[in-house]
């Protein structure tokens, strides 16, 4: 934008004082529309923070006098208690089918509720179709919950049939699955059972359109929200509003189809063989661990996959595959036990996805201690034998 051109003659004429015998001008009078004059004293008064013992100025307040005094640090305003949102009669329902692995909502499951809320808008309700009881569904964003009855054990066809019949019974507008091995499998079974197209691996959700990658991420496909959707991980923010009521919605039990699966047996992971990226529980050693024999014994006794910081891998004390961090492996573990690790940012990046961290370190101010849910400020060389001893004692007490 170009600045308006000044016209000195017109400015001068506007500043002329009438009534004088000779021409007189008030050159201090500002022409209208010019920059207002600043008053530093008044600005400082407006920036003053009330209630503080010594003078404090909030420099973010520029010019305008503050409408309300900023709350002082001494007495923070208590946030209003969140009220449960009750939706009496939603115009339509959007269903979410969380994995609920081990009966708990994963971060990916929570993101489904965020997507469902976007698709439900103001008048729709979100219903969670859960196989198991879940107390956290209301805070996660469910207006209704429905229990899917089904046979125990591995019976994906029965679950798919239950979801397909619920879809018809409740006239669900959308059903959202996580794009995980379990959720993705279920979504595809429901899609062929109901004869509905599936919009898989969605990476962007808005009320009007969905986006998914195709052709090996060469193109993106955009379409109006389909009825069956699987959602990619970390694409949509989880629901962050006030808790919802999660009222129980009674469902007619449907007959389970005959299954051709004769037996299914879950084989737990062998921690010693599991690749680090897949491991559920990682026991990791850093530069503070000198007794690596004991460390390996601890990892085996706890049933964790052994990991290490870069220092140990560079020194050849641990294999390179064991390195945790930005230039090693980024973990997806539930729990990380860090023995003698300082917690450099490059290391912490590898641990970012871990839900729980336990740290043993002699330094109270180490970053790893700050990150940990349980921090032990003690020599790792004495804690490790104590762990083995304690586990042996438990086993001995039973025998």
């Amino acid at each position: 934008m170009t600045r308006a051109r000044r016209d000195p003659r017109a400015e001068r004429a506007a500043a002329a004082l009438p009534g004088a015998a000779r021409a007189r001008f008030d050159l201090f009078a500002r022409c209208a529309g010019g920059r207002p004059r600043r008053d530093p004293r008044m600005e400082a008064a407006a920036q003053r923070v009330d209630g503080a013992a010594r003078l404090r100025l909030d420099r973010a307040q520029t010019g305008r006098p503050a409408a309300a005094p900023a709350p002082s640090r001494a007495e923070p305003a208590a946030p209003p208690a969140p009220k449960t949102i009750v939706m009496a009669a939603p115009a339509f329902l959007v269903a979410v089918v969380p994995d609920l692995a081990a009966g708990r909502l994963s971060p990916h499951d929570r993101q489904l509720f965020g997507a469902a809320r976007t698709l439900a808008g103001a008048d729709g309700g979100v219903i969670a179709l859960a196989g198991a009881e879940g107390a956290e569904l209301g805070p996660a964003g469910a207006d209704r919950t429905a229990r899917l009855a089904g046979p125990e054990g591995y019976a994906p066809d029965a679950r798919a049939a239950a979801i397909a019949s619920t879809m018809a019974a409740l006239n669900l507008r959308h059903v959202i699955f996580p794009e995980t091995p379990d959720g993705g499998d279920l979504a595809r079974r429901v899609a062929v059972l109901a004869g509905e197209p599936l919009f898989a691996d969605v990476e962007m959700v808005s009320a009007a359109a969905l986006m998914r990658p195709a052709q090996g991420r060469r193109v993106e496909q955009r379409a109006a929200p389909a009825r069956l959707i699987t959602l990619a991980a970390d694409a949509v923010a989880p629901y962050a509003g006030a808790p919802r009521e999660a009222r129980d919605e009674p469902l007619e039990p449907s007959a389970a189809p005959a299954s051709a699966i004769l037996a299914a047996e879950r084989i737990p992971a062998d921690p010693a063989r599991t690749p680090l990226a897949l491991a559920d529980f990682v026991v990791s050693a850093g530069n503070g661990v000198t007794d690596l024999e004991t460390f390996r014994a601890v990892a085996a006794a706890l049933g964790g996959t052994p990991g290490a910081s870069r220092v140990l891998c560079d020194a050849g004390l641990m294999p390179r595959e064991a390195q945790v961090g930005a230039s090693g492996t980024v973990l997806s573990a539930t729990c990380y036990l860090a023995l003698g690790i300082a917690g450099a940012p490059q290391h912490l990046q590898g641990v970012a996805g871990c839900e729980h961290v336990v740290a043993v370190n002699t330094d109270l101010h180490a970053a790893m201690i700050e990150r940990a849910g349980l921090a032990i400020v003690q020599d790792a060389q004495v804690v490790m034998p104590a762990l083995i001893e304690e586990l042996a004692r438990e086993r001995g007490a039973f025998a």
Partner: protein
Amino acid sequence: MKVAVLLSAGRHPVSGRGALPRLEAQAIRLAAALGSARGLHAGPDADVVAEALGRGLSQIDHVALAAGADPVPALAAVLRAAAPDVVLAGRRGQGGDDTGLVPYALARALGATVIPDVVAARPGSEPGVIEVEQALPKGAARRVVARLPVVLTVHPAAPEPSAFAFGQARRGRIERLDVAAPAEPAAAAIAVAEKSYRPRPKMMRGAPAGGSAADRLKAATGGGEAAQANVMVSPEPREAARAILAYLRQIGVLAPPPGAG
């Protein structure tokens, strides 16, 4: 055991050139352990799947189909006639629509059971039964015994594909099948608008909206939520060990002590 391996016209994930998808090459290796296998491809051109001959298949059946047509009715018609015991497919396509729906739709058409994410398969202890191993997240697995016929989709953790052998590729044959286009109603397709893919930043878990760079770094390294951590300063080693074990049991990564519960 009669085995069919579904071969799609994939694209290499980096170069974008036509290539046999890795999962389907792994499927050929799994098929070799089960019995005599034939490849099956539906599409305008069979040259793209000829690579599969060098990976261990001796014969590929090719159903000519217009580009962009739904392959499921044609594949279902061929498989119904051939009646294989096991159909092996990739868990997702690579370079097409990549929805992973083809194996499920075929299983429905054939009345077969789908077992996804398979890493190993062998004939069961009695006839008419197959035993497969499924990969689960976090390194776990599931051993499933199922009645035939089955459709298995292959997981990336299955054994590496066998090496390409040029002589084998020359000896292998591609046979063209003519299938009267069956009048099965194709599943209603979704009208999509396509454009080239634009990578978007991944959502950052736990990062506050509109936070500063320091907040984002904290969210990236996972700090923040554990501000009120349970810190034990210089505890007795035994006390520390007990606290660690109790914490691990509370979050469920360690089995409860023997004799408890």
